[in-house]
């Protein structure tokens, strides 16, 4: 699993990458009450605002971690946004994307580097 400075995690599944937010981010946001997902089959560039998450406190944007195409979104989150608090790094994945350049994953943080980043 890889991590971004924006508190997203990425997990490769074949040529697809699954993306969500970290446990640390979910805890910092507080109880999540609203998720707005992009359409599947959307071309995105790194740092595009692709998802809106609102907690009891505030709205936050989730940015595209890398260039690519969003191929699937987790529709279950729309009806049950609190899943992100309950299971942020597994069941509450947010979208899946096909990277333009899969090798860009290598430059992201590993778990130890992310732990140091949030320490």
């Amino acid at each position, binding site marked *: 699993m890889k991590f971004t400075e924006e508190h997203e995690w990425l997990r490769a599944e074949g040529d697809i990458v699954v993306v969500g937010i970290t446990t640390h981010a979910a805890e910092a946001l507080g109880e999540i*009450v*609203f998720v707005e997902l992009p359409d599947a089959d959307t071309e995105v560039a790194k740092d595009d605002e692709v998802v809106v998450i609102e907690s009891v*406190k505030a709205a936050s944007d989730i940015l595209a971690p890398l260039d690519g195409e969003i191929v699937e979104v987790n529709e279950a989150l729309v009806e049950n*946004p609190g899943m992100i608090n309950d299971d942020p790094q597994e069941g509450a994945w947010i979208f899946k994307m096909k990277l333009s350049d899969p090798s860009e994953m290598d430059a992201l943080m590993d778990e130890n580097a992310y732990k140091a980043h949030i320490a």
Partner: protein
Amino acid sequence: MTDLLKTPLFDLHVSLGAKMVPFAGYDMPVQYPMGVMKEHNHTREQSGLFDVSHMGQVIIRAKSGDTRDAALALETLVPMSIAGVAINRQRYAFFTNDTGGILDDLMVANRGDHLFLVVNAACKDADIAHMRAHLSDACDIEVIEDRALLALQGPASEIALARLSVDVAAMKFMDVVTTEIMGVACWVSRSGYTGEDGYEISVPNNKAVELAEALLGMEEVAPIGLGARDSLRLEAGLCLYGNDIDTGTTPVEAALTWAVQKVRRTGGERAGGFPGADVILAQFDDGAASKRVGIQPAGRAPMRGGTALFASETSTDQIGEITSGGFGPTVQAPVAMGYVPTELAAIGTEIFAEVRGKRLPATVAAMPFTPANFKR
């Protein structure tokens, strides 16, 4: 930046694991480990303890010794019947300015030989200066610095507080008493700002932690932060000064006409005589151009303060703005309030809010969003 002030409960908040944030110059708990939503629900279902010691506590005494003279003096600053507040009763009030705007909202209690006021933290210095400037001929103004203020809110609050004082169970909404709690005289009112039954307790600073710990030791009671306080008051349709009301909104525009007693309105025995009376009383007679209303978003997206409102999905003219909004944990949906033109203020009117560049539908809705649960 100046140092943040601390209430007598600061160390207790920290020891309870609160997340502290700056609020009105004080370092205050925004939430505890329970989290905003559970704290909100706990208050609606059980009893929540809030530290509201940042708020201003002020005593006004008439120089004549007759509290009615203090009440009549205060009536020159507020459009309420203060002389009509019976002994051991409390009333919601607001200071107005010369243009009919609202300087602050407050509670006024008649405690027999004096009036007791609770004002907002962010406004208290200005309020005190305002009262000293205008009331000093007739009254002595005493700022209470040696007392904390706790709010205990929610349906189990009576059971909890009655363990410490038998006097509080018989109180009705907006009653005030002086009662001994844990060996000290506390000034208790049956009121609050959550839409729930409950109490506000003015307790000497040196007993505040002991009282808070005694209440928190009861199974019904949990500590509640400012985050849940905001969602509770929003669902209850109650205004947050500085967001929903300010110097640019009149009581009529703010839909607070219920708080202005008939005796102060046109034709009343003590009509007018408060700042901005010409503007405010004219609006009582002729209406105002805009009105504060409840707003129920149609979808799940919260519409927060500052969101622009429109009459249709395509119109380019902004008609108003949301002043408070968020997710209502009890309603299980987003809720909001804001100002719209009076002709669009009827309950059920469809309006649109622009959220992240998109026009989302909403409906003008009755407030409160959750039924008030006061002990009448």
